[in-house]
């Protein structure tokens, strides 16, 4: 097999000439449309690309990007961050998680603070590194703080598979996996923000496929175009949405054809299904309880479930955010980060009040980091 250089994955997709050409075509279609259109990019990865590459600066006046709730760190309620903090502070526990979680503030502090107080908190590149850490520390319990949408769930499932297969006895799981379609539906039902079309998430759709979005054109008359994360992908996604509108079509389309199919990754889906089932409800920070929007370990794997084993230490009482924190409205697409009075003053990436400011996919972090030049 020919080896693939990393640049081949993005180089053509940032080409200035292609970008200019697409912007021109978007201009023509937007003029044909003749009215305003509000496009929600569901995923925080898209929000970051839009602000980082300044794509919103290139849009005609009648096209508006609405930032969505697709940032797993941002929507995790404070009490669950506190749970991770509490677990990390237990004697003989090593808490491992993905890098983004380290800085997120709970009511007691972040995992970074827990680490400064002596807790053993480590970040991973691959959940499978947990196996090595567990083997190197046989006298410790290693708790994997699992978070993320459909994108990261298969990695957790693969780790569970190995833990069982290799009979590793000192790894537990604190599961916070959530799913995309339910909050999208809630946003349309709640009508807090005007959403005329969705740019669907890239990597989630690689796993789950695009069939999960069919409900949106069918029942909400809202088109979905699944686009990649590069500037050319996003612009082409916008163009495809405009064409649907102008041609009076309303459907699920794939721009990110190099990775996404309607069915998705069936092997990964099967692996997820082996270990996980839907939770009745999961509380989303700033949004509230959403039915069927998260996963939990199936009953037969309760012996791996830190949430059950340490249950007595993990109160489910809801912890409110700072009164002036607008994260809820921002996650619902009803406000932009700059409309929050705390933004950039009391709330910055180094002393965040809300997790939208710390996560690498948070809308506030994107606006702060790239400055939102208009």
């Amino acid at each position: 097999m020919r080896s693939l250089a990393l640049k081949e994955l993005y180089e053509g997709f940032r080409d200035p000439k292609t970008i200019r050409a697409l912007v021109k075509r978007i201009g023509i279609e937007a003029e044909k449309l003749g009215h305003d259109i509000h496009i929600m990019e569901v995923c925080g990865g898209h929000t970051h690309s839009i602000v980082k590459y300044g794509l919103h600066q290139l849009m005609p006046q009648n096209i508006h990007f609405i930032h969505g709730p697709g940032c797993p760190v941002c929507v995790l309620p404070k009490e669950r961050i506190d749970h991770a903090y509490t677990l990390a502070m237990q004697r003989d526990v090593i808490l491992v998680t993905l890098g983004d979680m380290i800085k997120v503030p709970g009511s007691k502090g972040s995992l970074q603070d827990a680490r400064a107080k002596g807790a053993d908190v480590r970040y991973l590149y691959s959940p499978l590194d947990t196996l090595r850490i567990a083997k190197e520390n046989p006298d410790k319990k290693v708790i994997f703080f699992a978070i993320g949408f459909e994108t990261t769930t298969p990695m957790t499932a693969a780790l569970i598979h190995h833990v069982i297969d290799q009979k590793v006895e000192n790894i537990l799981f604190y599961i916070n996996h959530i799913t995309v379609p339910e909050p999208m539906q809630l946003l349309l039902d709640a009508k807090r923000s005007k959403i005329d079309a969705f740019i669907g998430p890239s990597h989630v759709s690689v796993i789950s496929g695009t069939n999960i979005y069919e409900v949106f054109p069918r029942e909400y008359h809202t088109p979905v175009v699944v686009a990649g994360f590069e500037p050319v992908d996003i612009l082409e996604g916008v163009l495809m949405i405009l064409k649907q509108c102008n041609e009076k079509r309303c459907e699920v389309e794939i721009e990110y054809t190099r990775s996404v199919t309607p069915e998705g990754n069936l092997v990964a889906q099967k692996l997820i299904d082996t270990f996980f089932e839907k939770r009745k409800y999961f509380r989303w920070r700033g949004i509230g309880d959403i039915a069927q929007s998260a996963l939990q370990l199936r009953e037969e794997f309760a012996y791996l479930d830190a949430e059950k084993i340490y249950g007595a230490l993990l109160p489910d009482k809801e912890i409110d955010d700072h009164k002036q924190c607008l994260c809820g409205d921002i996650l619902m697409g009803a406000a932009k980060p700059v409309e929050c009075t705390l933004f950039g003053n009391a709330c910055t990436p180094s002393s965040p009040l809300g997790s939208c400011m710390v996560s690498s996919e948070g809308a506030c972090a994107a606006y702060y980091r790239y400055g939102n030049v208009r």
Partner: protein
Amino acid sequence: MKSITLAHGNGGEENGRLIEELFYRHFQNKILHQAEDAAVIGKGALAFTTDSFTVTPLFFKGGDIGKLSICGTCNDLAMMGAKPKYLTCAVIIEEGFEISALEKIVLSMKYELEKNGAIIVSGDTKVVPKGSVDKLFINTTGIGEIRYKGISANALSLDDVIIVSGSIGRHGASIFLEREGMEFSTALESDCRSLWPVVEKLIEADIDIKAMRDATRGGVAAVLNEWARQSDICIEVEEEKVPISREVKGVCELLGFEAFSLANEGTFILAVSAQDAPKALELLRSIEASSMAEIIGEVTTGYPQKVLLKTPYGTSRFLELPSGELLPRIC
């Protein structure tokens, strides 16, 4: 109760705040408040600086802690237009450290000192029980003779041109990969090297140097932001002009980093007057250490105290001071 986190040592926002609110507040004096790479003392004749070195791994691609400890301090002097002359060296060694490894480190210090024409004139050795430090910490303090006066982060003005001496982010990216044991097939190595030989040529050619800084912790983003703030100007950078190697780009893509925020140990940023920019660029490119030099931007009045990154397709964004600990993203 607040305690120190790793973010307080990142060379960015938290680091800056700790220095301002604690050290500057209690140690305050006019020289310290200049906030330059090295203090200017002795009626403007001498530059004086100190730096402590801790790095994992001690031996990395492109150098080791010994080379780094000489480059770091000598480069801080060179960035003030000073010829490095006399250094002190203090080492804190963990019990059990191999003497042969220590000798290897001392030899690379010696080699690097020769490149700078500097000597170690005083030193100190402490050995501490196992676990009290991570293998070896080195502090070096240096005095240099100022050969070019007036270089300052406060001296930039309208129309000055910003030049970078080479491709950025190599030290930060390379150390990160090695420290985390990530195995990539890559030619990436640290850019760690002494800068005085390059600076000496710039001075000899009588280039109108306004400011100079090696873009260490916090990277190019930290240097440009500090200049914009201290000189109350806007720096506009053409993103596609900034040299970034394929390897560094790759690491950034994979882990969600920004090359502008990654550390450099032998790449510096230079601000010169517009009329001297072509001459400075030509000179830099004629020297092997800075053969990849590029003009990347200029000083404007656009957004005072801000750094603006411009794309070739007509959009722009601010380049902010890096903040937090360097952490890889989720997905």
